[in-house]
């Protein structure tokens, strides 16, 4: 009797084992891109497992020369080197506004909020672009030399992110890019 119980328990354990293995298996992160143009009734949805994105991004340049200034146009704003210096100082301060560029109809704000760096672009008082980047990603992006942005390192960090990365809302279209663990 005892032997039968043992054999039965063993078989039951073997039967449950694959389920247990599945249960502890880490879920696959997915990168999602949604582009919608309500006026044209047009929708584009792209969902890719991050491991595929990781492989595809091998084609991305390892570094990106900024060729001038970031967070501004037509000679305004800051160079990457300027921003790197400022970032290394401000990172220790905690939550703060990092950059504010005010123009006639447009404002660009870069601020640190918790573990995120938020970039908001408003046109005519309406939020059009919101980018949320983890602090670690900015660190990695700025780990290049001179006016170069280290894209490769930033992408590697981005893979740990879960949640929204980019939201763009303009009058004709919306774009949302985010990472979660659902296909």
């Amino acid at each position: 009797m005892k032997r039968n119980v043992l054999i039965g328990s063993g078989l039951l354990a073997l039967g449950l084992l694959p389920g247990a293995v599945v249960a502890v298996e880490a879920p696959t992160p997915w990168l999602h891109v949604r582009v919608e143009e309500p006026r044209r009734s047009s929708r584009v949805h792209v969902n890719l497992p991050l491991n595929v994105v990781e492989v595809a991004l091998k084609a991305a340049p390892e570094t990106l020369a900024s060729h001038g200034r970031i967070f501004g146009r037509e000679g305004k704003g800051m160079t990457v080197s300027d921003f790197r210096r400022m970032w290394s100082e401000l990172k220790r301060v905690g939550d703060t506004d990092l950059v504010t560029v005010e123009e006639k109809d447009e404002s660009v704000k870069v601020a640190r909020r918790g573990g995120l760096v938020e970039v908001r672009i408003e046109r005519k008082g309406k939020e059009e672009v919101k980018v949320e980047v983890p602090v670690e990603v900015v660190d990695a992006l700025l780990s290049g030399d001179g006016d170069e942005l280290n894209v490769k390192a930033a992408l590697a960090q981005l893979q740990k992110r879960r949640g929204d990365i980019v939201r763009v809302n303009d009058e004709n279209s919306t774009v949302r890019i985010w990472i979660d663990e659902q296909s």
Partner: protein
Amino acid sequence: MVKLMAVLSVPVAFLAAVASLGVVVVDVREGGPDGHHIVVPVPLAVAQTALAFAPEERLRVKLDRAAQHLPLAREVLQALAAGPDGELVRVEEPGEQVVVTKVGDTLRVRVHDRNDDVTVNVPLPLAMAALPDSQGRIPMANLAGALGGVRFTDLVDVRSGDDHVKVYVW
């Protein structure tokens, strides 16, 4: 009676052998009352042999700058094959829809518009086998081998109006 059975056993055995090795079937149905129905079964072994003996100059593609991206394309296909199933792409516009789904080791592409429905199932091992090498040569031996692994697959299904074309491997 025994003689008849003996005579018939040879073609029956041959057909059974061919069927067991697989058959690529092209099935074309034309719409309308006078539409034709054409079925072309090609034994997989014949297709594989034809691929193996296809002239090399015809199997070379001009790659130019694309050659440098071939290893990456192969890696992407491998990662895709190893990755989880799910809907990869959906494009919707009025009257048109394109959906790309990964199911097992197959990419299913569905295109639908007002008059046409197209479904293409791309077995990823076949796609990987069809990738040309750095010289632009399509490795036919690999392709022929991969073709054997896609049995019982509907490769192409096109419905356009009343016309219907299917290509499947049985």
